[in-house]
């Protein structure tokens, strides 16, 4: 479920990449990403904390993560 203001969409292609998941968990300053052996999951309760720093976009292959500003729609 998206947040009130922000949604983060992780492409299925990279969602099971455990190494990337670890990286995403490490770099996100507001703990939106959680890593496990199965890959990455999104902590929905933190979505609206997103500070739009784009670090996750830089860490992932281009276009594989989308930050959606729901208030723009």
């Amino acid at each position, binding site marked *: 479920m998206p947040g*009130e*203001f922000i949604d983060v969409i992780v492409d299925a292609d990279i969602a099971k990449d455990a190494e990337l998941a670890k990286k995403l968990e490490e770099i996100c300053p507001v703990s939106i990403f959680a890593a496990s052996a199965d890959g990455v999951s999104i902590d929905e309760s933190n979505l609206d904390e997103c500070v*739009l720093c784009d670090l996750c976009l830089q860490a992932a292959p281009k276009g594989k993560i989308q930050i959606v500003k729901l*208030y723009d729609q």
Partner: protein
Amino acid sequence: MRFYEYEAKELFKRHGMPLGKGTVIAKTNAAADARAAFAKLGGIPVVLKSQVLSGGRMKAGAVKFADTADEAADAAEAIVPVEVNGQICKSILVEEKSPIAQEYFVAITWDGRAKRPVCVFSDMGGIDIEEVAETHPEHVSKTHFSSILPLTPRIAKEAVGATGVTGSDLNKLAPIVFNLMKIFLKYDLTLAEINPLAKLEDGRFIVLDGHIDMEAEARGEHKAFLDELGIDDDETRLARPPTPFELAGAKVNAADHRGVAGNVVEFDGNLGLVIGAGGGSLTLFDAVRNHGGKPANYCEIGGNPSMSKTKELTKLILSKPGVEKIAVMMNVVSNTRVDIVARGVIKGCLEAGKDPAETIAIFRIPGAWEEEGFKILEKYGVDYCDRSVSMYDAAGRAVAKLKG
């Protein structure tokens, strides 16, 4: 953060201030302890003073004199249940009763306008200094000094001498005032007051009562000293006990290290305030009142609080009975994100079951990420303004909206 009198005197004692003999007794076994204290002080007449964080003790009956052990026991029992401006007795300070020839007043505090500490001295102590300043202005001196440049005894002498005190009294008083100035600076105090500072019949000067307020933000710096006094980290030490609303505000602030959304003070109005930034809180609070508005609270937000922290503060303010709308206003911000605050207050409204467009009377936070913030506000139909609208006018718009 206010000190009890006995703590203030402990601080004074460590810095060589002249004090009378005294001892603190617990309130649980007051009568028996008062007898023991009376004997310990040599069986001389004593004064028993309730330890509360408020003035007005004498009027409330929380200060009593005793010439015998029985009288001391009775006085202690009588003092314990007395409430002084909502404050209950913590313990009782039993001191020798001093034969007073004259009373003086000295206080060091901050002069916000001069942006410097000021020493207020009067040779008419023991009574309300505001009253003295009005009726006998020539008996009150105000002497500013620097908190940066080295402090010299001359400034203390000037402060005392300005009220006409001369000779031996001037020479004895000046070091006490100078010492108080040094204590004020060393401990990051917002108030260091001695009233009365008494001249005894034998010519000695002693501190009869002292008030100390420490800057709350300086608690960490002086933790070792506060620990020695037995002051716990969670003791707020305000002039009145915090209300449940204020305690809840402190909890919101403490729950998340990101930024500030706290220092909530409860008032009885109907306009909730989410305000802050570089003195903005005080300015905006005053502006609301100047426009005839009735704030439901004072608060301080800043330092880029997280969305959830702002949200929780908003929900808390909206939960206060009688709050119909909130005004979200800050000075121009550079280290707080406008969009994050916008998200927080809107989500707070939504989680409180309220329509942000109806509930937020005005959103006036210009600064970092404002374009993003304004997009969010537009989406939810919230009335907002940028820096072209002054804080004063924004407050006026909020008050007008509430008045309908």
